């Protein structure tokens, strides 16, 4: 049940109507024989949300529902145990139970075959022939997201930042909450869990902004990402691309992955708003970043802050000198890369980001005093910085998108291969004119958002202009929206 399907639209409408209209205390009190207490109504609502979330997940593959339930039960029990015990050693052991079971799940389902393959290849390169033992398991949808979410809960309880959740129902609903279950944002228990404990109101503003977010997300996914993806796919399918084909392909992928993932997040946030919840923002105009650390404050914010709080800082952060800081950055980003997928290309992607963070950390204090301009020169430098860093990020998308190191190598060779007739080169990439128009549209809107400092620029426009924009968006949606329901890129992680 993908967010861009009509089945999901029907599901969302049914769930929202049932949860926010039928299961309201005011309604239940009147229709239920003997009346219903406010707390009881809330429990029913949460139980309904849990059931809906399980139905949503089972629609992907019901067999993996057991993993979700297992993860929920383990972390709920660990949370309670951590709340009861005060002895540091015992608490540490309980935390270890959570870590081992969650990371164990990830290890078995996501990484076992990758490491088995890599180990066999290593032995092979040393002259020992070994047939790797493979589990060949299907990767459960969203496993990387919900394991990180439940892990953050137990770690926060262990650290004493939040109290343990006493209601299994609330906790299970928090872990399985369907708008963010399969591709995030990875919510912190401190932010999301309390929302299950209080009465949630869907105000007119919430409904309106939710609808806007869902509409924006669908437009980003179905119109921009799905159309631009055909250009990226065509480019990466070429065996010997030339420089222009590689560059256009990687630009297309940069637009695709941003619109795909941020579109998903917008739909998730909009859906949650219709249910009375508030999810965190996962993207903040990432391609306007001027440095790697700025990029990670804008891109997949819930993951980067997770990695910062539960990996980078526990490793020592920047408190142990420049060398250790660089090492910590590299380790964090390597694991961040590996989190995305069990492949060396993702590890390389993580390593590149680790390297960039380290280099910028070293360069910034040295260059900043020399580049302290004022007035138009400062704006110009800022603009150049944004453009330059966008290209650096595009370069890192190469290993991220490449299916294997061979494909990556052929792209790198391609970058040095001069293009002949540019129109012939582009012709091999299919629908690049439409992709260009859609990218220009995205860039235009984002420039307005960046300059005005808000994501809701359209809402500030005079009504006729806003209505005209809506009408144009509907027409563009109908005309260029992808025929078939294409999966979201981040579902594979």
């Amino acid at each position, binding site marked *: 049940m993908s967010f861009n*399907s*009509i*089945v999901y639209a029907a599901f969302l409408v049914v769930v929202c109507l049932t949860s926010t209209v039928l299961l309201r205390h005011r309604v239940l009190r009147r229709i239920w024989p003997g009346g219903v207490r406010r707390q009881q109504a809330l429990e029913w609502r949460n139980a309904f949300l849990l059931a809906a979330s399980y139905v949503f997940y089972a629609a992907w593959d019901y067999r993996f529902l057991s993993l979700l339930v297992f993860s929920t039960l383990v972390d709920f029990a660990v949370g309670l145990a951590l709340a009861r015990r005060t002895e540091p050693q015992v608490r540490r052991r309980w935390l270890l139970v959570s870590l081992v079971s969650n990371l164990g799940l990830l290890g078995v389902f996501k990484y076992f075959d990758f490491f088995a393959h890599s180990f066999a290849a290593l032995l092979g390169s040393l002259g020992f022939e070994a047939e790797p033992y493979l589990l060949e398991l299907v990767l459960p949808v969203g496993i990387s997201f919900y394991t990180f979410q439940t892990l953050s809960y137990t770690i926060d309880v262990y650290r004493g930042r939040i109290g343990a959740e006493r209601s299994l129902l609330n906790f299970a609903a928090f872990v399985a909450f369907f708008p963010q279950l399969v591709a995030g944002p990875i919510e912190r228990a401190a932010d999301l869990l309390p929302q299950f404990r209080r009465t949630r109101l869907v105000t*007119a*503003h919430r*409904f*309106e902004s939710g*609808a*806007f977010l869902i509409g924006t997300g669908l437009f980003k996914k179905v119109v921009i990402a799905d*159309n631009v993806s055909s250009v990226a796919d065509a480019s990466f399918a070429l065996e010997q691309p030339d420089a222009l084909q590689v560059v256009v392909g990687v630009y297309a992928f940069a637009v695709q992955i941003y619109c795909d993932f941020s579109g998903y997040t917008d739909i998730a946030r909009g859906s949650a708003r219709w249910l009375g919840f508030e999810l965190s923002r996962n993207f903040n105009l990432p391609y306007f970043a001027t440095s790697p650390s700025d990029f990670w404050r804008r891109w997949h914010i819930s993951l980067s802050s997770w990695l910062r709080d539960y990996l980078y800082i526990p490793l020592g952060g920047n408190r142990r000198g420049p060398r250790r800081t660089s090492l910590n950055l590299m380790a964090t980003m390597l694991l961040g890369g590996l989190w995305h997928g069990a492949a060396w290309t993702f590890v390389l992607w993580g390593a590149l980001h680790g390297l960039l963070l380290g280099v910028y950390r070293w360069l910034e204090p040295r260059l900043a005093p020399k580049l302290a301009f004022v007035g138009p020169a400062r704006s110009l430098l800022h603009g150049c910085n944004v453009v330059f860093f966008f290209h650096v990020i595009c370069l890192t998308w190469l290993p991220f998108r490449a299916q294997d190191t061979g494909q990556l190598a052929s792209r790198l060779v391609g970058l040095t291969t001069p293009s002949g007739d540019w*129109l012939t080169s582009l*012709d091999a990439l*299919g*629908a690049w*004119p*439409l992709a260009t*128009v859609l990218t220009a549209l995205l860039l235009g809107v984002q420039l307005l958002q960046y300059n005005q400092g808000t994501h809701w620029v359209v809402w500030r426009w005079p*009504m*006729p202009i*806003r*209505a*005209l924009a*809506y*009408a144009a968006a*509907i*027409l563009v949606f*109908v*005309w*260029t*929206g992808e*025929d*078939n*329901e294409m999966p979201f890129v981040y579902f594979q992680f």
Partner: protein
Amino acid sequence: MRQSVYCMLLALGFLMAAEFTLRALRRDGTLPYSYRKGGYLALVPELDEHGAGSIAIVGSSRAREAILSPTLEKALLAALRREKPKPGGATIEVRNYALSGAHADAVNQTIRHLLDAEPPPELIVYGVTPLQLETQRTDPAHHVSYTWEIGDAWDAFRRGAEDAPRYLPNAVRNELAHASWWVRLRPTVRAALRRPWSELAWQDLHEVWQAPEQQANPMRGQLPPKQQGKDRNRVIRVGKRRIEKYLDGLYQEPEYPHTRQVAWLRDSLSLCRESGVELLLVELPAAPALRRYSPEHTYPGFNRLFTELSNEFDVPFVPIDEVDVTFEARDFREQSHLTYVGAVKFSRALAPVIVREGRLR
């Protein structure tokens, strides 16, 4: 909130103004005909705007290329005059709704739309081939879904097309396309936007503004585009290797004939019976090499199945041997399709068969 509602209402107003402008500028709401997906998309607007004609041809591209509406119309009129002389003469409109790659499920969908047309055709000529009972080369719901309405999607899902929900957007768009010409024009606009340098894409967009009679549309009783070009009599030599490559994995027992396709076929026959529209099943010609190199059981099994269905549903079935026509090498473009001369020959030979078996009123 109130402002957003007003905004949406105003946006709808803008869309309606755009719709009225388009309707004022265009003569009708049909789509330019093209092969593959374009044919499927053109079907419903065509029926909405021009009805089904008196004789409708259905089937795959082999039926489209083999039965030429203008030739058949003339031959039928002549044959009818011979058989049943009428004062003032009869009028017959032959329309060819056969679609590329259509298997029994897609033909079923075409027949459903034809039966819903106002008025429905008097006779449906169903050109049958063994390939229509295969499933190997089609995604069961993919092409068919371009002609779906929401009820059809549900029906297909109920009958075992598990991926039907994936194609629901097509069904929703088709429902909307009944009301909006802008929605109808989607494939044409999309093609032009995706490949603006492609002559073909602009040609379609240009055709939107052309008078219908200037187009090449077999659904409107004109010759199909391939039968009009300078290559219409071009012959590609077919050898054993090409046929083997073509037949790769086709017609293998026990999957063949596929039960789901047979079920769709049976459904088509019963739909016609229920609605009182006459149906005629005609086996389409295939190059001798294709018959020779197909698995042995293919054609006998195919004939047996259609003979059984013919008896069960009281629908005439005409095997190719019973059509009075002799083909030569130059009549086949390749193993499956006829050249223009072959198609003229077959269409002429089909007229007396239709008069004899078609129960024309």
